[in-house]
């Protein structure tokens, strides 16, 4: 059970098939395998404990991922959009390391001692410059394959540990080997440091699918690459799909991507309006919602194309609401919703989502394993399962508002406020309250030219939810703070309320 096995099988089965297309460069699966083994020699020569990557997508990324497996060191892709102190702190945490990066990203940084820098182009050139002995990957299935720093939307980034057996269990459990056709191509727009960026490389390799890389996402380039590279599959985060749809609405034209057959999305909550518009603009395309976490080696639940179509077309509200669900657990994952006392809840009751399965790592370098004695991992996501087994998420457990002992999920209030005709975006957070401990605070963004008073918004919620859900404090912003993957920075919003009340 080593990541390298997926590449060896692909290179054995279809050596001449193109593995990576990036800016005019094409590498076959045989090339990628040779480059990974050569890259491993570069890493071994550096005598380091980690291989860091601080860069956008390029052919160096899949080479580095597999090269680290052959060198027997963890692969650590990092977020190049972090601030200088944040990045320098992460780099100190992986020293001694070899760092593959780019001049633009490196320019503002003072690279800590123990971190040897190699430019992306140089690593790629070296890895493609010779053919090493075809060695096997060292180590055991339990060895760390990848270490990913969490996004840190709630605090200091934690180092999530993913072992070879976790990642390979995910791939073997969800992907049929060599299932991609000769002409299949996936457009990879998620950055390398996101778990979806990693699973895209592993799943595509195992399926034998060509990876087309888009280093810096924008809607127009995404659509153009779909056309020029005859892309058949794509994975996007909700923000990307939202921008693609906005672009098409503004241009007023057709998407014009006849080769595109499937779009998978995940990595955050998809607004209903966005997915409905997307299905209108891409009528022949299969949509799949993938819910997963870094700590679970990516996808644990799927809402497939059939559910999207029936949800889109149905007049039955129970079927229609499925578009807002993350679907059902994949066959290799067990899922439970538990209450505060750890009791397993019945369908329709909201609680914390727990999962179990071989792909579930649930482990941080600093804290160790978070799995309980039976192997269950607390996702810290709140949600519920309906009578048909579909899972509905209600936000992070850490974002729950505890008002006088009552647990309130921001998600249900946000959903209601988003339906208000004047509201274009909203985030609900806990605000300090003398009487209740915490109260409901809402930050709203209005549509262009629209307005609503506090009383109007409070009435709107009161008519639809229990009175404890009515926001006591409402603030207005021109836009909400998001991180680059489309997650609302609730920490920032909470801080603003704290400043006001103190």
């Amino acid at each position, binding site marked *: *059970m080593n990541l390298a096995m997926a590449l*060896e*099988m692909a290179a054995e089965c279809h050596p001449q098939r193109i593995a990576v297309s990036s800016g005019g460069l094409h590498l076959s699966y045989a090339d990628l395998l040779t480059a990974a083994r050569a890259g491993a020699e570069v890493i071994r020569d550096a005598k380091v404990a980690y291989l860091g990557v601080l860069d956008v997508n390029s052919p160096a990324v899949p080479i580095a991922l597999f090269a680290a497996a052959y060198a027997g060191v963890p692969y650590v892709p990092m977020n190049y959009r972090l601030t200088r102190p944040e990045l320098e702190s992460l780099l100190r945490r992986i020293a001694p390391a070899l760092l593959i990066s780019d001049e633009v990203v490196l320019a503002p940084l003072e690279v800590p001692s123990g971190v040897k820098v190699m430019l992306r182009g140089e690593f790629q050139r070296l890895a493609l410059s010779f053919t090493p002995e075809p060695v096997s990957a060292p180590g055991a299935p339990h060895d760390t394959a990848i270490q990913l720093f969490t996004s840190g939307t709630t605090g200091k980034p934690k180092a999530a540990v993913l072992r070879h057996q976790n990642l390979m269990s995910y791939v073997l459990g969800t992907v*049929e080997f060599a299932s991609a056709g000769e002409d299949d191509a996936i457009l990879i727009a998620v950055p390398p440091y996101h778990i979806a960026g990693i699973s895209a490389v592993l799943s595509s390799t195992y399926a034998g699918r060509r990876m087309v890389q888009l280093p810096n996402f924008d809607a127009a380039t995404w659509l153009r690459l779909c056309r020029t590279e005859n892309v058949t599959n794509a994975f996007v985060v909700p923000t990307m799909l939202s921008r693609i749809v906005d672009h098409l609405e503004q241009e007023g034209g057709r998407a014009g991507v006849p080769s595109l057959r499937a779009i998978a999305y995940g990595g955050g909550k998809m607004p209903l309006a966005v997915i409905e518009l997307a299905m209108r603009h891409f009528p022949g395309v299969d949509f*799949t919602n993938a819910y997963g976490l870094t700590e679970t080696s990516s996808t644990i639940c799927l809402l497939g194309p059939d559910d999207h179509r029936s949800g889109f077309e149905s007049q039955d509200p129970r079927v229609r609401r499925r578009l807002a669900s993350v679907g059902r657990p994949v*066959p290799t994952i067990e899922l439970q919703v538990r209450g505060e006392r750890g009791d397993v809840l019945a369908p329709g009751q909201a609680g914390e989502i727990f999962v179990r399965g071989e792909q579930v790592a649930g482990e941080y370098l600093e804290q160790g394993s978070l799995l309980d004695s039976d192997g269950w991992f607390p996702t810290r996501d709140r949600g519920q399962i309906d009578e048909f087994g579909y899972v509905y998420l209600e936000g992070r457990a850490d974002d729950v508002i505890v008002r006088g002992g009552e647990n309130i999920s921001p998600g249900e209030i946000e959903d209601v406020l988003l339906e208000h005709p004047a509201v274009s975006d909203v985030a609900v957070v806990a605000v300090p309250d003398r009487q209740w401990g915490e109260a409901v605070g809402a930050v709203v963004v209005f549509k262009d030219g629209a307005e609503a008073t506090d009383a109007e918004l409070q009435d709107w919620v009161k008519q639809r939810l229990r009175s404890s859900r009515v926001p006591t404090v409402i603030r207005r912003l021109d836009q909400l703070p998001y991180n680059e993957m489309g997650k609302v920075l609730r920490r920032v919003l909470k801080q603003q309320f704290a400043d006001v009340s103190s």
Partner: protein
Amino acid sequence: MRLLKAGTRAKCAVCDTEVMVVRTVPAEVALTCGGVEMVAMDAAKTPGAHAGTAGQVALVGKRYVNAADAVELLCTKGGKGELAVDGEALSVKQTKALPSSD
């Protein structure tokens, strides 16, 4: 006969077949390809032939299970022999195709 673990890889001593153990039983088993016991990945090949010529070949990427669904192998390199555990021929596991999610 040997004790296998999930993740253990083995190869046929005769043909090209290679497998990885996905699931197994907590007991020693005889893992064979074409009737010949499979060996460790770093072991030398033995010149010779499969004990039997009947049966199916091993196909890369396919999962092979016994009737009790207790032992499961992934064929990581295709070959010409039939995979078996303790003399019981393994069959190809039928998997339900999932939509591509990444």
